[in-house]
């Protein structure tokens, strides 16, 4: 079974600065999919960024980018130019090669301070 670990329960960052959220996972599969989801307070969870394990290039979506280290089974999320609206819970998630069986980490609560 796959496991996803987020070792930072809470983090804070000043507005306009950069923050990195950590995620590690464990799997025996060679191909799989990794995701970061954002869950704002009292609002629904939304997909932030997706990475396919067979692609070496790190995914980027505007201010959000990942550092995918396959050998280390590490998948961190970098948020540049942090904005107040980035305040949320962030969940790292893993899907198997078939693209199902989504497993979530425990989450990191990010607070962006003005």
């Amino acid at each position, binding site marked *: 079974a796959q496991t*996803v670990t*987020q070792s930072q*329960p809470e983090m804070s960052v000043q507005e306009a600065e950069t923050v990195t959220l950590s995620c590690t996972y464990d799997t025996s599969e060679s191909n799989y*999919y990794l*995701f970061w989801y954002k869950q704002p307070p*009292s*609002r*629904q*969870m*939304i*997909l932030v960024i997706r990475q*396919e394990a067979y692609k070496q290039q790190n995914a980027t979506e505007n201010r959000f980018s990942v550092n995918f280290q396959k050998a280390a089974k590490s998948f961190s999320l970098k948020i540049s130019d942090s904005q107040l609206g980035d305040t949320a819970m962030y*969940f790292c*998630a893993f*899907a198997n090669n*078939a*693209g*199902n*069986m*989504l*497993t*979530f*980490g*425990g*989450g990191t609560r990010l607070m962006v301070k003005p």
Partner: protein
Amino acid sequence: EAGVAQSPRYKIIEKRQSVAFWCNPISGHATLYWYQQILGQGPKLLIQFQNNGVVDDSQLPKDRFSAERLKGVDSTLKIQPAKLEDSAVYLCASSFSGRLNTGELFFGEGSRLTVL
């Protein structure tokens, strides 16, 4: 485009009572998921439907939880009898194909259950 609809948003019951949650996925989405999110934890999959068939219910406590998606559209999750440890947010999500490598998973706002 309407999102995933869930009701009720909040429910407070006493232990041993029953409760039901309803979910209407995005139109055209074949796959529907129910997740349980206990405070401070990540969501845990309870059951996954593909149209009106169950794909995975391995983590559903079948002695007290049941779910159905009779017409392959909306779904109901029931808990009977509820226990204190069932206090959580119940998230419904849907996707077009169930293959998350090609499509997104869309979540509803959740139904928050408090068992006293």
